[in-house]
């Protein structure tokens, strides 16, 4: 079995629904979506206009699902979708898009363009037009269990370090726990302090939790590459582990699209609702805050701002929670321009950071984040996605800017009242 153009075309046909039809019928070529997309604003390349990225899907809609298009096809009208065309669109759909969804927020006729790009990726993946880097990550995710190749021993080693350093026990495979925590490979490898922070907070707030050894990976490469089949397989592992451990809730960690994958796409991918609830770590922490179970005594005097990870805030719905939590410890918090649901993407989500081919453009578009930061002159930036954090650090270095990029959970843990 291998990828083929026919499979890709068929996948595109499956993706057209009433919303797609309404969107394409309404586009008036105003170009406002380009002004919302950092891949255009920082490069000026018109082909990176978001709606243009959906052209393969649009042609399929027009020629397969409109009467006029079908009649036109008989007479040879209408530009065809070909394998060459899909090749041409690869860098637009993968390298120049993080599925951040800003375009969907501003389109005056109401098009959810990011959603349509996500759908277009289904056709690209099935026809073999995904970036090699992303294909590699996806293969590792399915075969090894992590796109970065992190196996259970690696996680166990990190856990051991935390337990040794803090003296607390990190619960693994505890049946009947309230919460099952997922972790992104990025956190395990690059930010293991997160595990320590979570352990500390949950102990402080007396939360019953566990990590599942059979399904600890939060990242879902299937979502990034745009293959629902693969994404479903990855979600199913989590569902199976949650069932086995009989947990009530699954926590999505500080990882952007992991939340989108498990919280919003998950049940639709596997075709049935969950027997558990899904919360983002920030949602849980805010819940604990509201219940009065978090006692924060530390104050951070540095001038701080918050970078909204796209898949968590704009596309995920977790916008107020981080701000509530930051307010617990920050003395000098300022919003960057366009805060909250209109914040600008860091430039690395949606598979872009796994795509070596996109390294250059990824750093080029960081200029947008730089402009936001230059307007507020802060000492530090908080975020809640490790992929954002790694890339933000890359960008700050590239543009010779000095400031720490902090994890919200970690900062909160640092400022907890010692009991």
């Amino acid at each position, binding site marked *: 079995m291998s990828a083929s153009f026919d499979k890709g075309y068929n996948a595109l046909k499956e993706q057209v629904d*009433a919303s797609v039809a309404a969107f394409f*019928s309404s586009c008036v*070529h105003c170009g*406002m979506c380009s002004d919302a997309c950092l891949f255009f604003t920082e490069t000026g390349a018109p082909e990176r206009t978001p709606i243009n990225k959906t052209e393969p899907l649009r042609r399929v809609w027009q020629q397969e699902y409109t*009467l006029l298009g079908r009649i036109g096809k008989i007479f040879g009208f209408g530009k065809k979708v070909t394998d060459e065309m899909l090749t041409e669109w690869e860098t637009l759909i993968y390298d120049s898009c993080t599925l951040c969804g800003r375009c969907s927020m501003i389109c005056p*006729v109401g098009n959810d363009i990011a959603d349509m790009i996500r759908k277009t990726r289904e056709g690209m993946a099935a026809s073999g037009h995904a970036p090699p880097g992303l294909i590699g990550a996806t293969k590792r995710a399915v075969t090894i269990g992590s796109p970065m190749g992190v196996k259970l021993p690696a996680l166990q080693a990190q856990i051991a370090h935390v337990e040794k350093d803090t003296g607390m026990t990190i619960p693994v495979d505890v049946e009947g726990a309230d919460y099952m925590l997922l972790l992104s490979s990025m956190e395990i490898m690059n930010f293991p302090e997160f595990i320590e922070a979570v352990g500390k907070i949950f102990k402080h707030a007396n939360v019953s939790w566990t990590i599942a050894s059979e399904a600890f990976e939060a990242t879902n490469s299937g979502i990034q590459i745009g293959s629902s089949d693969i994404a479903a397989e990855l979600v199913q592992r989590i569902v199976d582990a949650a069932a086995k451990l009989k947990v009530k809730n699954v926590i999505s960690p500080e990882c952007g699209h992991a939340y989108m994958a498990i919280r919003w796409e998950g049940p639709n991918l596997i075709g049935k609702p969950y027997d558990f609830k899904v919360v983002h770590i920030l949602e849980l922490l805010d819940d604990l805050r509201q219940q009065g179970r978090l006692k924060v005594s530390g104050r951070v005097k540095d001038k701080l701002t918050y970078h909204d990870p796209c898949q968590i805030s704009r596309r995920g719905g977790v916008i107020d929670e981080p701000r509530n939590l930051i307010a617990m410890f920050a003395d000098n918090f300022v919003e960057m321009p366009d805060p909250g*649901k209109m914040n600008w993407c860091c430039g690395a989500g949606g598979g872009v950071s796994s795509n070596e081919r996109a390294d250059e453009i990824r750093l080029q578009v960081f200029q947008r984040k730089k402009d936001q930061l230059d307007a507020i002159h802060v000492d530090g930036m908080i975020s809640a996605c490790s992929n954002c954090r790694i890339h933000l650090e890359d960008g700050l270095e590239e543009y010779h800017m000095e400031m720490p990029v902090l994890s919200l959970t970690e900062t909160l843990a640092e400022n907890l009242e010692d009991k």
Partner: protein
Amino acid sequence: MTETELLTWARGPGFQIATVIFVLGIALRIAEIVMMGRRGNLAEPKGSAMSSGLRTVFSRTVPDASTFKRSAFTVTAGYIFHIGLFVVIFLFAPHILFFKDLLHISWPALPSTVIDATSVVTIITLIVILVHRLKDPVKRFLSNFDDYLGWFVTILPLVTGYIAFHRVGMSAPSLIAIHILSVQLLMIVFPFTKLMHAFTIFLARWYNGAISGYRGVQS
């Protein structure tokens, strides 16, 4: 054919033909869209898709400040010509009579001098918009025959209406007939082009708001 015969034809069979194509075409396209359906969402909702969708239908009309700064021309010129078009079409007494005959409801008119001035502003704005579409890199890249045809059939009734109102060049029956025929051209072309956005925008905005609102974000 005499001028009066042309005018009477335009007011008679002309409108019949144009109405059939216009209404049938619009109904067809909307039905075609809605029939595709949408899969139900099995994830647990955080907000209300229904109320969010409804709200987006209206709220999307107002861009946020940052977006407006970047797309100021598109937004401003777009609003001027849309509002101008609305005023000229729906608030001019002879046109209101047309709608009263069609829909059996009526509403007050604006003085025809106001309509006249509005039509001039609208025509000029449309010309400026065309120039912008031809010169702006993104718009030029995106634009195709559909865009230019849509522009043409929209400005033509405005221009012919202005000429008919001021009775320049030919005698009145011909000018009014030409104006009515240009409206019918717009009606016939409408369902096959992006002009459909006048109707499908309500669906698109609703879907957008519903998808996002389900996740608890007002889009």
